[in-house]
C-alpha cells in the first residue's frame, strides 16, 4: 500500500519535471519582472526607490499623450471589433450555404493572415495616398493617413488581416450546431431566418463572445500595422498605446512605463475574467 502511494507521488513529481523548463522560463521572463514592474510603478525613481503609492498612476492618467493614446486605442477597438465580428459571422454564414468553390474562397479570405504586413504596406500606402487610387475612385482629395480619417485605413487593414481567422472560428461553431435540431425546426415550418436567430445564434453565443474578446486583444496589436505604415510619429489620430510605450521607453521614464503597463494588464484581466464567466454560463445553458 505504502509502495503504491510513493509511486503515485513519484509520478506526480515527474509530471512537474516536464513542466519545469517552461515554468522557469515564464517565471524568469514574464512573472518575476512583472512584479518588478509593479514595484517600479510605485516608487519615485530608479535610484532612490522611495515608495510613492499611486502617484505614478495619476501622472500617467493625467498625461496628455497617454490620454490621446488611450482614446485612440479605444476608438479603434470600438470601430474595428464590431465590424470584424459582424462581417466574419456574415461570411461564415454565407459559406455554410451550398456554394461552389468553397475551399477556394476560404483560402482567399484566410490567406491575409499569413501575409507579412510589411510586404503589403506599400500597396496600402499607394492606395490611400493623397494622389492614390482610393481618392481617385471616390473622387475626393484627402491625405488619408494624415487626416482624422486615418483610422479608417487601419481598420480596413485590420479587417483584411483578421476576417479569415474569425471566419474559421465561426465556421467550426456553425458546423457543430446539431443537424437534427435544425431539421426538426425546418419540418415544423421554421424559416431560415428563424432557424438562424433562434437556434444557431444560441449555439454561437459563446463563440461570438470568444471572437469578440480575441478581436479586442488583436485590436491592441494593430500598432504593428500603424508603425509600418506611418513610422514612430504618426498623425494624432493614429497615436496608439504602443506608441506611447515606445516613446516612454526612449525617454527612459520607467515609472510611467510601469504604471501604464500595470493599468493595461488590469484591463486585460477584467476582459479575460468576463470571457471565462460568460463562457461558463453559456456553456451550461446549451448543455441543459
Amino acid at each position, binding site marked *: 500500500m505504502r509502495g503504491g502511494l510513493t509511486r503515485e507521488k513519484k509520478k506526480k513529481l515527474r509530471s512537474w519535471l516536464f*513542466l519545469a523548463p517552461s515554468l522557469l522560463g515564464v517565471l524568469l521572463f514574464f512573472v518575476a519582472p512583472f512584479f518588478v514592474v509593479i514595484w517600479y510603478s510605485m516608487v519615485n525613481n530608479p535610484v532612490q526607490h522611495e515608495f510613492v503609492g499611486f502617484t505614478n498612476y495619476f501622472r500617467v492618467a493625467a498625461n496628455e499623450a497617454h490620454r490621446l493614446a488611450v482614446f485612440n486605442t479605444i476608438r479603434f477597438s470600438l470601430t474595428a471589433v464590431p465590424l470584424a465580428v459582424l462581417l466574419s459571422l456574415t461570411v461564415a454564414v454565407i459559406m455554410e450555404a451550398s456554394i461552389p468553390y468553397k475551399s477556394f474562397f476560404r483560402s482567399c479570405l484566410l490567406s491575409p493572415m499569413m501575409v507579412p504586413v510589411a510586404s503589403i504596406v*506599400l500597396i496600402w500606402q499607394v492606395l490611400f495616398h493623397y494622389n492614390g487610387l482610393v481618392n481617385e475612385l471616390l473622387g475626393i482629395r484627402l491625405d488619408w493617413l494624415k487626416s482624422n480619417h486615418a483610422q479608417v485605413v487601419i481598420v480596413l487593414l485590420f479587417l483584411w488581416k483578421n476576417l479569415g481567422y474569425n471566419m474559421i472560428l465561426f465556421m467550426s461553431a456553425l458546423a457543430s450546431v446539431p443537424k437534427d435540431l435544425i431539421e426538426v425546426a425546418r419540418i415544423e415550418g421554421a424559416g431560415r431566418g428563424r432557424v438562424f436567430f433562434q437556434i444557431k445564434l444560441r449555439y454561437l453565443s459563446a*463563440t461570438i463572445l470568444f471572437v469578440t474578446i480575441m478581436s479586442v486583444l488583436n485590436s491592441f496589436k494593430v500598432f504593428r500595422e500603424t508603425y509600418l505604415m506611418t513610422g514612430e510619429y504618426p498623425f494624432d489620430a493614429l497615436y496608439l498605446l504602443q506608441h506611447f510605450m515606445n516613446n516612454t521607453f526612449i525617454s527612459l521614464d520607467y515609472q510611467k512605463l510601469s504604471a501604464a*503597463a500595470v493599468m493595461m494588464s488590469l484591463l486585460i484581466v477584467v476582459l479575460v475574467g468576463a470571457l471565462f464567466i460568460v463562457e461558463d454560463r453559456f456553456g451550461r445553458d446549451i448543455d441543459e
Partner: protein
Amino acid sequence: MKTFEDYQKEIKNRRNNVKRMWSWVLTGFLFLAAALFLMPVIFTFTNSFMSASEINANYGTVFATTKTGGKVFISKTVNLKFIPDLVTFSQYATVLFRSPAYLLKFWNSVIYVVPIVVFQLLVASLAAYGFSWERSMLKEIIFFAYIILMLMPYQVTLVPNFLVSRSLHIVNTHWAIWLPGIFSPFAVFLLTKFMRRIPTGVLEAAMIDGAGDWQIFTQIAMPLCKGALASVAILIFIDYWNMVEQPIVLLDNEEMHPLSVFLSKINSGEISLAFAVAVIYMVLPILIFLYGEEYLVEGITYQGGIKG
C-alpha cells in the same frame, strides 16, 4: 387541367429557382470579396517585375522624401498599375546580388524565427504533457495564469521582457528576442488543449506495459500530436516572422533588425526594390500557407473557446 402534382412541381421549381439565384448572388459576393482580399498580394507580385524607372514614374510621389527624411508633397497622380509595361527580373537581381542589406535582414529574420519555433515547441510540448496528466488544483491555477499571460498584448509584456534583458545584459543581442519567444506561453496553451483530448486509456495501457513517462511522451503523446505540432508551428512562425514590437524596443542596433522592420524604412532611393523585397519576404509564409492550410485551420479551431 393542372393536377395537384403539377402545382407541387411548379412550387418546387420556383423554390429551386430562388435557391439557385441566391446561390449565384452569394457566389458573386464571395468572388468580389476574394478578389479584394487577394488584390494587395497580387499587385505586390506583379509590380515586383517592373523596371526601376517605371516604379519611380508610377509611385515616386508616394515615397518621395526630403533630405531630412520628411515626406515631400508632389502633386502628381499615383498610377497603380496591374501589369508592368515591361516584365523584368532586374529588381530581383539587384536585391539578390547587388544590395546585401536586404538579404542580411532576411537572414536576420530567419535567425530569429527558426530557434524560436523549434525551442518553443520543445519547451511547450514538455509542459503540455506535464499539464495534461496528473492534473491538480495547483496546475489548473498555473494553467489559468498561462492563459492570461498569453492574452497580454506587447504593451504589457515588453516592459518586463526589457527589464530582464537589461539585468541579464542581453539587450541588443539575439537572446533578447529568442528567450522571451521560446518561453512564450502560447504553444503551451494550444498543445495542452490538444493533449487533454488524448484518451487516458491509451496511456494507462502503455503504463501497464511498463513504459516510463519519457517513453510515453516521446513514443505515444508526441506522435499523436503531430498535427497539432504542425498547427502550432505555423502560428508561431507567422507571429515572429511578422514581429515589429520586440526588435524596435529590444534592439537599438538597426543592423540586427529583421526584414519586417527594415522593409518599412526603405527610403525613396531604393523604392524600386521595395516590391521585390516584399515578395521575397512573403514567399515563405505563403508557401507554408499553401502547404499547411489545413493545419492552420485546425490550429485556429482549437483556439475557439479558451478553456480546455
